[in-house]
């Protein structure tokens, strides 16, 4: 006889002794265990399914983090192969470039940038057909890359298909009506076809986009020469030379024009300059081919590594990024741009002292570049050394008076520090005169505002809006200033 702790419910059944039903609490426990078990099974199955699906489909662009863990293996494998030593022959370097570029396309299969890099590698190897195919794949992924249309058009031109080339460049202009250089390419081709008036129209537009490009004026000279407008041609060639004194083709054109104008002495002088500059250019090229072939190839490979760095997220994949830059510098330790990238990498990671050292190195390697000086100033500000920040940025402005960025950064410093505010406004006025971008006008707005120059602020913000009409921040700033006024 069983001892009962609780009253039991008797269930009567005929003929047989009645089994006692389990208590409600035990039944629910079983259901609970069943539920837990089912959930666990679902979880396991789910993980297996997802894992297998990931293997088949590969990483997607949206899952960059999971992609990174998979794709690191691709580029890491390339880096591991190059642990020590530098390649000693051009074919070796080219193989490394190709392996790296191919690894990038596997790492980022739905991105246009690695395809464009691989195309460039094939182009250097002389495989224009493959390069062209890759550019077309890249532009299909990103139709806004006007530079890719330019490359495809140039490939068509090399195949002596000028109409196809022009069609591709036109597509580039549809993607970006202000893309620099595309109208120049089209104009050059049209000149060859005798379509001089159309070429002229295009060059006039191109001049508004790239006003300081000497080659625009050179082509204008070629057009005018063919139109027998020799005085205009002369002026265009002279402008070319004024912008770029070593543009020997312009001297050749000038010589031809002077001959047509029956000015033999001037023609001889121009041709003399042409001969001298051309000989110098040819000599440099010959020397580079004869002597510098391997360093040139290494430099190009180094740049490819630097571009590869830009594809990876330095915050998520620091080791890969560092190794890419390290390899770039092994190949070309004199490339200031790569050192600058490394400095920027440390800047982003918060390694301020390291970044400072590296930016100083860049200033020594590339004295004509204002950016490292600007970054040094910004670093001092971040490192709570305002005095040094200010003096660095002031020196940068003095050293690079044509750099709008230098003016902008010093103005920004003043505005944040709430000091030298009138000077900040002056700086931004200069910056917008040098480079009338929406961002610069926006900063000018701020500078005018804090100087209680509401008319100036209003004028500046209206210009910013005109350049970037969809920017909500500009519009709200406009409203705020207008209400203040």
């Amino acid at each position, binding site marked *: 006889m069983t001892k009962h702790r609780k009253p039991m419910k008797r269930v009567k059944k005929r003929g047989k002794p009645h089994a006692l039903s389990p208590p409600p609490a035990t039944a629910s426990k079983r259901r609970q265990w069943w539920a837990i078990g089912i959930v666990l099974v679902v979880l396991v199955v789910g993980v297996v399914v997802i894992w297998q699906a990931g293997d088949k489909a590969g990483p997607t662009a949206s899952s960059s983090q999971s992609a990174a863990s998979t794709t690191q293996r691709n580029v890491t494998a390339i880096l591991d192969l190059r642990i020590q030593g530098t390649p000693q022959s051009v074919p070796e370097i080219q193989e490394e470039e190709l392996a790296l570029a191919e690894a990038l396309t596997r790492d980022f299969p739905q991105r246009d940038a690695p395809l464009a890099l691989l195309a460039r590698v094939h182009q250097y190897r*002389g*495989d*224009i*057909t493959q390069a062209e195919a890759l550019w077309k794949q890249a532009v299909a992924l990103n139709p806004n890359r006007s530079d890719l249309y330019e490359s495809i058009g140039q490939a068509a031109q*090399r*195949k*002596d298909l000028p109409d196809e080339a022009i069609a591709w460049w*036109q597509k580039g*202009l*549809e993607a970006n*009506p202000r893309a620099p250089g595309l109208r120049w390419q089209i104009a050059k081709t049209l*000149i*060859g*076809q*005798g379509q001089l008036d*159309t070429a002229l*129209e*295009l060059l006039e*537009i191109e001049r508004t986009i790239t006003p300081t490009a000497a080659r625009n004026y050179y082509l204008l000279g*070629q057009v005018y020469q*063919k139109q027998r407008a020799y005085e205009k041609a002369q002026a265009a060639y002279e402008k070319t030379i004024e912008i770029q004194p070593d543009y*020997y*083709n312009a*001297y*050749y*054109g000038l*010589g*031809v024009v002077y*001959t*047509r104008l029956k000015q*033999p002495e001037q*023609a*001889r002088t121009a*041709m003399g300059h*042409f*001969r001298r500059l*051309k000989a110098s250019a040819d000599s440099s090229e010959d020397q580079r081919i004869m002597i510098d072939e391997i360093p040139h190839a290494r430099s190009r490979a180094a740049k490819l590594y630097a571009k590869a760095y830009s594809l990876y997220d330095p915050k998520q994949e620091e080791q890969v990024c560092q190794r890419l830059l390290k390899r770039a510098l092994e190949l070309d330790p004199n490339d200031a741009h790569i050192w600058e990238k490394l400095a920027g990498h440390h800047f982003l990671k918060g390694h301020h002292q390291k970044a400072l050292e590296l930016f100083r190195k860049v200033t020594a390697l590339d004295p004509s570049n204002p950016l490292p000086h600007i970054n040094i100033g910004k670093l001092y500000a971040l490192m709570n050394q305002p005095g040094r920040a200010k003096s660095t940025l002031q020196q940068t402005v003095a050293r690079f008076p044509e750099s709008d960025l230098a003016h902008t950064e010093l103005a920004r410093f003043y505005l944040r520090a709430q000091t030298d505010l009138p000077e900040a406004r002056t700086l931004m006025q200069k910056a917008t005169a040098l480079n009338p971008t929406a961002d610069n006008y926006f900063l000018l707005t701020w500078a005018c505002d804090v100087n209680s120059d509401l008319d100036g602020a209003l004028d500046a913000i209206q210009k910013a809006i005109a350049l970037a009409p969809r920017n909500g921040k500009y519009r709200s700033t406009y409203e705020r200033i207008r209400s203040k006024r």
Partner: protein
Amino acid sequence: MIRWGPRQKVGKRQPLGTVLLALAFCAACGAQSPSTIRLTDVTGQTGIAFKHHDGSSGKYYIVETVCAGLALFDYDCDGDVDIYFLNGGTLKGANPKTQPRNALYRNDGNWKFTDVTKQSGLGDPGHALGTAVGDYDGDGDPDVYVTNFGPNVLFRNNGDGTFTDVTTAAGVADGHKVGAGANFLDMDNDGDTDIFVANDQMQNFLWQNDGTGRFEEIGLLAGVGYDMNGDAMGSMGVGCSDFNHDGLIDFYVTAYQQQFPSLYKNLGDGMFEDATFLTGAGAGTVHTVTWGNDFADLDNDGDRDMFIALGHLADNVEKWDQRSSYFATNLVFMNTGKEKFVNVSDSAGDGMKVKLSSRGVGLDDLDNDGDIDIVVQNSRREPTLLRNDSPKQGHWLQIRLKGVKANRNGVGARVTVVAGDLTAIDEVHSGRGYQSHYGARLYFGLGNHQRVDRLEVRWPAGGVDVFKNVAADQLVTLIEGQSQAALP
């Protein structure tokens, strides 16, 4: 402002009348009539067994790749044009089974040729590059000068079908240099002979004769030194002719791969203009290297067409540049008469389908049927002989000059032919195209004109002979000083 937007689609049906009007307009605008030029490959039936050797041994010496030219001339003065093929020699490292030699083939008529090299004595074993033909001793038969990689050779024609090597006696060996292409011509119409030199990868030279035997180099100022952008070309061969009937000799200079040949249009006053793109004379040439070339009226319509030999110099080019190939088909451009050239190679017969690596070219009437035939020297292979089978639609006139005071072959003489509204000029040159010689007989296509109203010969010695009312469709021999002699 030009709008470079998407092409507009034709969304509506065009009225039939508009379509017809458009078609008619296009026709009126000068959609040119199809080309009648037809060139047939008759190499197989000629009996010519010559095969070019470039002296290669696997070491890829540059001189292997640039040979060779050929000569078309009547060596035995029997009235038809014979062929002299230049051959490569034995370069360092090469070990041929038999010594390669130049080869002379006698024209037996009806497109049959006989190898007469041995008996002629012209089988020079040197590594031949170019040749020129002229009667240096004034005895009435053509002599041959061969430029070699190594000592050059002068062969004197003995007048009996044989030649003698007189290099040493004449003192013209000037060996161990590489002979390049050059042309003597009167580019400024001042009666004296100037010289154009096509230079590889550097400025071309135009030596202007000042009339006293002294020359001034004016290539740069004249506009023929470089292409229209001031870039040097890998200049190979040069053809000289008045392609647009303005009375001025123009040049066509062939070039290296990824470079367009240059058509320099003579503007007069010693000035030239690069008219390559405007005329369409560069189409289809950029993929490989262009070599021998010249102007010739292949369809007798009165305009000088053009033939260009193509082929890369590197037999492994496909390995490192997939844009190009070692073998290539040659090109023939039809002159439309409106300062435009049209590539008609695809419709010009099976002769234009031959795909080898061509070098020198010779253009002459090999079968004396009144049209220009073509012989092509192919590197490392047999030559190609192209018989002109274009329909006999236009009239023609061939002129052979015999100098008396001037040199026997009239080299340097200029002939002007006037037939109705057609005025054409030509000159006798020694050395043409790419390292080749041909054209001792001047050839004029006359189109519909059955007679030449006026024919003027300006001799290099200064004399001028004029002939009037000359019947077309014949070969005439004009002797210096006999302008009053009747011509048929």
